[in-house]
């Protein structure tokens, strides 16, 4: 069953330099129980995607357009009041980027965990018990509720914010770079926890990261974003086995690996400005195929590529927005 269906999602910000097109026509579907990794460089729009799905965008937003269907119901344009009461946190929860550093230092963990529950009418004792259950399920002792954030290590704080997100048993959990400030051993422990929670609570994840190797720890499918657009999406088998978009190929080649020997390469240049993105395919100024093949001149730098289906695919449709696959 399709849990989340995002259609032509656009989100623009008004800045002093002009309209910033953070998301510009993103479409994908997510099955119940599936884990989708959203991968891209800084400034590719991956965090904005998370904010758009949970409707927590910044105040300077100038356009929100497209449709998001969650369990068959449109949620992007439903009244905010209803979204807040029925969807956000209850059905779609998020672990925002660096949220473990946003814990209030002068309030106990327990108090900040139960605050939203108490406000929505759950008795305090009941809420506290729920918080303790939730802490236990992320592998922390129940008495953490009485502690303050400074008494916990980075890995423990990250577990606390995950516990906060799953406390109301959501269906969809959006994780925005949940391990980016942690070192490798703690990261591996958190990834083990996420695997275990997924199996136990039947969660659907959107896992946002800039690290393709880390994404493979969790992902059933991978979506690669570039400059506010989806460059490529497909099952993990297809994406790691046969990456199609030149940008995905570049990302794969630039990953340091420990166990296999390969020559590292990198993609020259920088992510383009989202205020004035390149015409045509947004990747063409950095694309090695475009630089080599004269036949692509006038195509890639003029017309935006639609998503082409690549066959054969396994698991889910393998789509790449690249003129090479016309």
């Amino acid at each position, binding site marked *: 069953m399709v849990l989340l269906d995002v259609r032509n999602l656009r989100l623009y910000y008004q800045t002093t330099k002009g309209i910033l097109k953070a998301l510009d026509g993103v479409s994908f579907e997510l099955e119940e129980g599936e884990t989708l990794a959203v991968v891209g460089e800084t400034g590719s729009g991956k965090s904005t995607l998370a904010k758009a799905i949970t409707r927590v965008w910044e105040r300077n937003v100038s356009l929100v357009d497209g449709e998001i269907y969650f369990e068959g119901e449109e949620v992007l344009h439903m009244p905010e009041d209803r979204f807040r009461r029925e969807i956000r946190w209850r059905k779609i929860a998020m672990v925002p980027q660096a949220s473990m550093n946003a814990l209030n230092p002068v309030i106990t963990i327990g108090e900040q965990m139960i605050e939203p529950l108490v406000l929505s009418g759950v008795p305090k004792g009941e809420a506290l018990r729920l918080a303790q259950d939730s802490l236990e399920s992320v592998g922390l002792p129940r008495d953490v509720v009485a502690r303050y954030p400074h008494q916990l290590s980075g890995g423990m704080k990250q577990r606390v914010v995950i516990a906060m997100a799953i406390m109301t048993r959501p269906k969809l959990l959006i994780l925005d770079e949940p391990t980016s400030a942690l*070192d*490798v051993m703690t990261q*591996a422990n958190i990834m083990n926890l996420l695997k275990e929670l997924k199996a136990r609570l039947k969660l659907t994840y959107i896992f946002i990261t800039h690290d393709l190797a880390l994404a493979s720890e969790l992902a059933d499918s991978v979506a690669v974003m570039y400059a506010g657009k989806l460059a490529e999406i497909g*099952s993990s088998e297809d994406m790691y086995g046969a990456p199609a978009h030149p940008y995905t190929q570049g990302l794969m080649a630039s990953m*340091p690996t420990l166990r296999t020997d390969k020559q590292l390469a990198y993609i020259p240049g920088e992510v383009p400005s989202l205020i004035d993105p390149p015409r045509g395919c947004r990747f063409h100024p950095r694309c090695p195929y475009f630089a080599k093949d004269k036949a692509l001149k006038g195509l890639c730098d003029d017309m935006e590529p639609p998503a082409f289906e690549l066959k054969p695919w396994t698991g889910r449709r393998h789509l790449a927005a690249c003129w090479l696959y016309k």
Partner: protein
Amino acid sequence: MAAKMLDVSDAPWVRADSLVVAHRLRLWYSVKRGLFSKPIYVKAVDGVSLSVARGETLAVVGESGSGKTTLGRTLIRLLRPTGGDLIFDGRDVASSDESELRKWFRRRVSIVFQDPYSSLHPYHSIGFILEEPLIIHGVPKGERMERVYKALEEVKLTPPEDFVNKYPHMLSGGQRQRVAIARATILNPDFIVADEPVSMLDVSVRVEILTLLKEVQKRYNAAFLYITHDISTAKYFSDNIAIMYAGKLVEYGPFRSVVKEPAHPYTQALIEAIPDPDPKNRLRPRKVAPGEPPNLANPPSGCRFHPRCPFAMDKCRREEPPMVEVRPGVYTACWLYK
């Protein structure tokens, strides 16, 4: 001053004739709990012996709190060791005072910090950031700008005239780290410490910076200490590796040999924790050590890793393991090999 040779026979992996030699180096931070209470000591670096020769890269790997950053800062004397010996180019620098160090030592060592967003002064232009070390160390005015331009070209911030008048906030993370590398190499140092230079950067930018560091190391034939928690980034230019845990050295050896066949259970767990881009990963949990590194003010008795070690025996809880040679050149501190 006559070259001083240390007796390092108790640490056979240390080559006493190297450029940088640390022997049983110790850095304990003292923390006062109250006005009249006795200070407690946080043993960030506790009896570490190692050496880095010219042209060699030593990777120092460990989790946060293992003392790796403190070790790096002590080796270039940003911190004064509280015990042990520290020899640089045959001269003892362990207890020299700052005015003495400024005469000869400071210009020969440098450091690249982890976070390029806070290691560059926001009100100084890139040109001045690079010129400042030249001013301090008395490079004549006529020569300075030429060297700044050359340094920018070497880190591929070209054309340099576009960058000298820019300020750090106008650059991306990768570009800032290039400036930090240029600043660290502008005085042609003999010893460079790179403290997690890529951990704050996007994966796609890391390779550019690693490639650049490798070039720099080759060009200057400097001794290089690469500090990281992620062994996979160290792979591309490290000769030797030292694994640290809770202020102690737990394994030392040639990089490839250690990574291929890690001896210490901690090294094994560190390597197991590194993800490879393989979609089959999602089907199995990783066998990593649970828990967190210990508090360095009150480390566990015996082997400091024993509370997290899957092979912990009675002896591990009581006695501290010595470093033993498990294969030619590979030393580890673990009772499994005794």
